[in-house]
């Protein structure tokens, strides 16, 4: 390859460019408007997201476009992930102004940081070299460290930011050290180059060390079980819209690129990483489920459930066949819709001092707010993988991919775990529909009730309602007519 450098089709970068420009513009506008124009900033941001979406549609990479000597290669897969990231960003923007105001947070850098992180998520699935992948992961993570700790008055949130930062940086160091060994043994960091220039089987010790370190790094970023300890704290402590953004967006982007690293760069080493991921998947699914069983806080429950879902997704990585690509992507989208919807309801019902909802708070919700309760039930059913919801189709696709690759034992463990998970998801539904409303003992919650009438859940304001509605529609449409999405996923898989 030598020193030749070709910028390539830079037009493919336009959507990300719009998002980055919007981030810079929002910082400027925030200064001009003296930090008081929360809603206006969000509205400007929403316009930018729509412009970026149109740009993505116009410059849809039907033929894969290489940019910067192949450091980024935009194809249909990357474009689909980019669309999803834009949708997630838009939903987060709708959620944010009301929530930011209610939590008494200030500042427009909140929106700018969201945009910067989203630009990283859009670039990530297009990255084709370990250098660009690591830089994109940093671009996703660095703004999120700040956002996680954004609710500075809350000790929880400061702690979340700090823990997320420490473990995130720890993970990055593992990835970079792993990349060093991979480069040292193959002489390249391009994914396609690694697969071509593997050393002979007897000289692979250092390469396997590098692969192991890289897997540990990815394990931290995707919250696989021995490396999951930060997830519950960060999910609980972060402002709820940020939690939604992280749960849906980071998972989507990092799993997309993880799949790509393994399938494009490391396929000849499959026997090694398959074994490693197999073990991680089993531990992740079981541990995530066990720890979720007794959670009282809804955000924490969703955090542990996100660990479990990461375990299911690893099934797709272990399978690593043609079916797995579209299955993993479909599962991520289905999961994202359900988790954003549930977190929107958490945000809507959150008490000011805690930014969280406890399961005991949900008692009697079905009577007072039947629609919201119904929506939350729908999201919980989707997370379980109940038929007619998106989660069901996602699980079927994922399990089918694992079955075709011949991992029957893993499949059985996953199915058992799904059945166990029914218990804690239905506990939420039970609290809303069956448990009586009196004896409202709330030991874990401080006495001050900021603005909620008579101690009951506050009514769901329209921004939250919009997000809940959109998520519910996505969950139902993907559940009832999955072909609508699967067609695209199968055309544009890599």
């Amino acid at each position: 390859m030598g020193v030749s450098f070709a910028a390539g089709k830079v037009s493919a970068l336009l959507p990300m460019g719009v998002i980055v420009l919007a981030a810079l513009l929002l910082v400027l506008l925030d200064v001009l408007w003296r930090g008081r124009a929360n809603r206006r900033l969000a509205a400007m941001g929403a316009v930018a997201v729509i412009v970026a979406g149109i740009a993505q549609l116009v410059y849809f990479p039907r033929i894969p476009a290489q940019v910067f000597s192949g450091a980024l290669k935009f194809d249909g897969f990357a474009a689909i992930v980019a669309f999803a990231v834009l949708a997630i960003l838009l939903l987060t923007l709708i959620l944010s102004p009301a929530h930011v105001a209610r939590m008494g947070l200030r500042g427009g850098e909140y929106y700018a940081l969201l945009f910067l992180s989203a630009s990283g998520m859009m670039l990530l699935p297009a990255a084709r070299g370990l250098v660009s992948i690591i830089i994109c992961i940093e671009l996703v993570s660095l703004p999120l460290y700040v956002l996680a700790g954004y609710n500075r008055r809350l000790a929880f949130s400061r702690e979340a930011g700090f823990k997320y930062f420490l473990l995130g940086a720890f993970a990055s160091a593992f990835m970079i050290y792993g990349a060093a060994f991979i480069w040292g043994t193959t002489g390249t960091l391009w994914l396609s180059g690694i697969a071509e220039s593997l050393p002979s089987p007897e000289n692979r010790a250092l390469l396997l060390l590098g692969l192991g370190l890289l897997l540990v790094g990815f394990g931290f970023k995707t919250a696989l079980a021995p490396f999951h300890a930060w997830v519950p704290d960060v999910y609980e402590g972060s402002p709820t819209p940020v939690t939604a953004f992280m749960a849906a967006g980071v998972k989507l982007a990092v799993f997309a690129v993880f799949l790509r690293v393994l399938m494009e760069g490391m396929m000849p080493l499959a026997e090694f990483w398959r074994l490693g991921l197999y073990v991680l998947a089993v531990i992740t699914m079981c541990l995530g489920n066990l720890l979720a069983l007794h959670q009282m806080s809804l955000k924490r429950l969703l955090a542990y459930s996100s660990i479990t879902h990461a375990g299911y997704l690893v099934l797709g990585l272990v399978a690593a066949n043609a079916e797995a690509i579209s299955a993993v992507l479909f599962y991520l989208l289905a999961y994202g819709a359900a988790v954003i919807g549930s977190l929107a309801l958490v945000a809507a019902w959150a008490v000011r001092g805690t930014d969280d909802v406890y399961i005991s708070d949900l008692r009697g919700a079905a009577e007072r707010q039947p629609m919201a309760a119904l929506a939350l039930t729908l999201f919980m059913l989707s997370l379980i993988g109940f038929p007619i919801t998106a989660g069901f189709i996602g699980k079927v696709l994922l399990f089918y991919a694992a079955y075709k690759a011949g991992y029957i034992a893993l499949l059985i463990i996953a199915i058992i775990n799904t059945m166990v998970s029914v218990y804690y998801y239905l506990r939420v539904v039970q609290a809303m529909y069956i448990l009586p409303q009196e004896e409202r003992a709330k030991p874990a919650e401080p006495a001050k009730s900021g603005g909620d009438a008579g101690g009951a859940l506050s009514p769901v304001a329209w921004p939250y309602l919009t997000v809940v509605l959109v998520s519910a529609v996505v969950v139902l449409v993907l559940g009832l007519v999955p072909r609508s999405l699967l067609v695209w996923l199968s055309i544009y898989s890599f």
Partner: protein
Amino acid sequence: MESIVTYSLVLSAVLFTMGVLAVLVRRNPLIMFMGIELMLNAANLAFIAFARHLDKLDGQVIALIFMAVAAAEVAIGLAIIVSIYRFRRDVDVDAVNSLRG
């Protein structure tokens, strides 16, 4: 492998291990943070040692790029630690534990 390359790699492994231990064992955020820096620099050292071994300049360029990444991380990390410190005088990780398990 040239002996200088081997020595550098061993040194980088030692540095990396020290960094990991610092993060896992020490409780002061600044020391933990230094541990992470140690890990990142161990990685850069490994890149440079391999650049010598493979006789390719790429490794040094990559090390420079990751130095920039590490610098960005330092900026964010110190800001976060300072913002915690402003609310509580002590910065001890064991004291930052209202969220548990």
